[in-house]
């Protein structure tokens, strides 16, 4: 028995969300009194792989195959499931990322494993059952799902498990899986990554704005605040529908659900569909000129005022704070 974790990389580097997943998987391995094995696919340098040991992977299976340089989910699913079978892993853990969403369901079907997607907590093993809490109804609620199959797959939401370093090293092993031609039917022809920007789903700090900003030409104040904080930018649905901001910034029930430490909402009224996507933020700050805006009801801190006046001041305050600390 063991726990297997798939460690996603972006351009050969692991992101914080990957280490979160490893820490989470290690905690599960501890619960089950077993070892954690990591599977890395792609071109990742030795130094980078070594870091996985620090988060609890006792062995690291390194798969470096030219055909798997880009993310081909069907082939990746085969490789990960095969490794799970070979290592006798009962639990497979991965990130509930865009790629994870293309991978976890395929692995679950291959292993005939129950899948808990969007997991936000460690499994509960009381009474011989295996239950996991996940978000449901687009962030409006949580569901407790029981995985009754022999094998289990869990996809962990970003920002839902604390990193934990341990004093240990992992053993890196080259692993050569079998790859079927029929698993390579998609061709990734290009990958574009904005490396200078923080990706919204993983962001710890988010500055978001709505229709209150009046037009796309006014987003500079939002970008300045985000830059001063080191935050990602986001928006409400009407803003992306109008083409003021790209779709991938749209937060809410029909957009991205985020769970940052800090969500600053500027000129957003707080419609139920928007709140669904932000309710698991740790701290919410609302800036709105209307004291009756529903968003204040779910905020931790609020300022009633004009965004065009308050936001630049806040940016200055953040800069002053950063230069002192």
């Amino acid at each position, binding site marked *: 028995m063991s726990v297997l974790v798939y460690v996603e990389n972006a351009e050969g580097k692991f992101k914080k969300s990957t280490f979160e997943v490893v820490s989470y998987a290690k905690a599960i391995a501890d619960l089950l009194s077993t070892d954690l094995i990591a599977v890395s696919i792609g071109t990742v340098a030795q130094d980078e792989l070594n870091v996985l040991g620090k988060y609890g992977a006792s062995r690291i299976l390194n798969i470096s195959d030219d055909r798997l340089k880009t993310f081909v989910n069907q082939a990746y699913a085969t490789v990960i499931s095969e490794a799970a079978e070979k290592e006798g892993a009962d639990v497979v853990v991965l990130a509930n990322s865009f790629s994870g*969403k293309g991978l976890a369901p395929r692995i679950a079907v291959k292993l005939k494993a129950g899948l808990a997607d969007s997991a936000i907590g460690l499994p509960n093993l009381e009474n011989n059952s295996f239950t996991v809490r996940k978000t449901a109804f687009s*962030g409006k609620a949580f569901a*407790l799902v029981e995985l009754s199959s022999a094998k289990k797959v869990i996809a962990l939401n970003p920002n839902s498990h604390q990193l934990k370093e341990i004093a240990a090293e992992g053993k890196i092993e080259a692993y050569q899986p079998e790859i079927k031609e029929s698993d390579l039917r998609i061709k990734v022809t290009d*990958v*574009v990554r904005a490396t200078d920007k923080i990706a*919204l789903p993983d962001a710890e700090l988010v500055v978001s704005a709505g229709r209150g900003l009046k037009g796309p030409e006014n987003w500079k104040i939002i970008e300045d605040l985000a830059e001063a904080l080191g935050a990602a930018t986001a928006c409400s649905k009407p803003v992306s529908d109008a083409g003021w901001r790209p779709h991938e910034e749209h937060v809410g029930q029909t957009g991205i659900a985020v769970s940052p430490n800090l969500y600053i909402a500027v000129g957003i009224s707080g419609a139920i569909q928007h709140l669904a996507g932000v309710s698991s933020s740790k701290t919410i700050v609302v800036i709105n000129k209307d004291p009756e805006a529903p968003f204040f009801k779910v905020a931790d*801190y609020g300022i009633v005022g004009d965004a065009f006046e308050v936001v630049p001041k806040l940016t200055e305050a953040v800069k002053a704070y950063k230069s002192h600390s």
Partner: protein
Amino acid sequence: MKILVCVSNVPDTTTKITFSSDNTQFNTAGVQYILNPYDEIALARAIELSEGGKSTVTVIHVGESSSEPTIRKALAIGADDAVRINAFPRDAYFVSFQIAEYAKSNGFDLILTGRESIDYNGSQVAAMIGEFLDIPSISIIKKLNTDGNSSSIEREIEGGKEMIKVDFPFIASCAEGVAEPKIPNMRGIMSARTKPLQVLEAKEIEKLVSFKSYSTPAPRGSVKMLTPDETEKLVELLHTEAKVI
């Protein structure tokens, strides 16, 4: 070309989500159900691709008879025919298996789903069907173009995008950008009543997961209000009290 679009029936986005007193059931009383918003996007693209009469668009839904209004809406928007697998859609594994079994015996070139259902949000169904059928699955796509053989797809990834080429058959789950949802017109609504809707019985498959109970997020403490002049104090509080910066 034959296109299959998977549609789910979900609580309207304005629904306040509540549960039975023992927290094991979702309270459906008074809840308005709608066609899942992402499925509208998938359906709109399917209809666009079928324009000119070269293709047919079938919608499939796994659910009980209470979801027929949603199926009729999909027909009104422009699907040619519909299939309902008559069963409670207990989880993604069950739903995907039913759809895959139907697709196996009817041969589709392209299967589209929504990015996720807004009730269970699994984002599971497309990739599971792909696995059951052993065909490529591409999750969370933002663009889909095809020349009849090969398709070019843009998929979202964290902080960027990926371009993909793939031949039929394949399955993809659609997000915003793929198409604009279509609003049914009067003719569509009239013709939807007479378009074929086939009802089939579900097949058995083992149960791997069960939903045990539900809860709602804990209410936040009361909001601390500051004046527009207190931005420095806000930063201070975010540091010392909230400890988020």
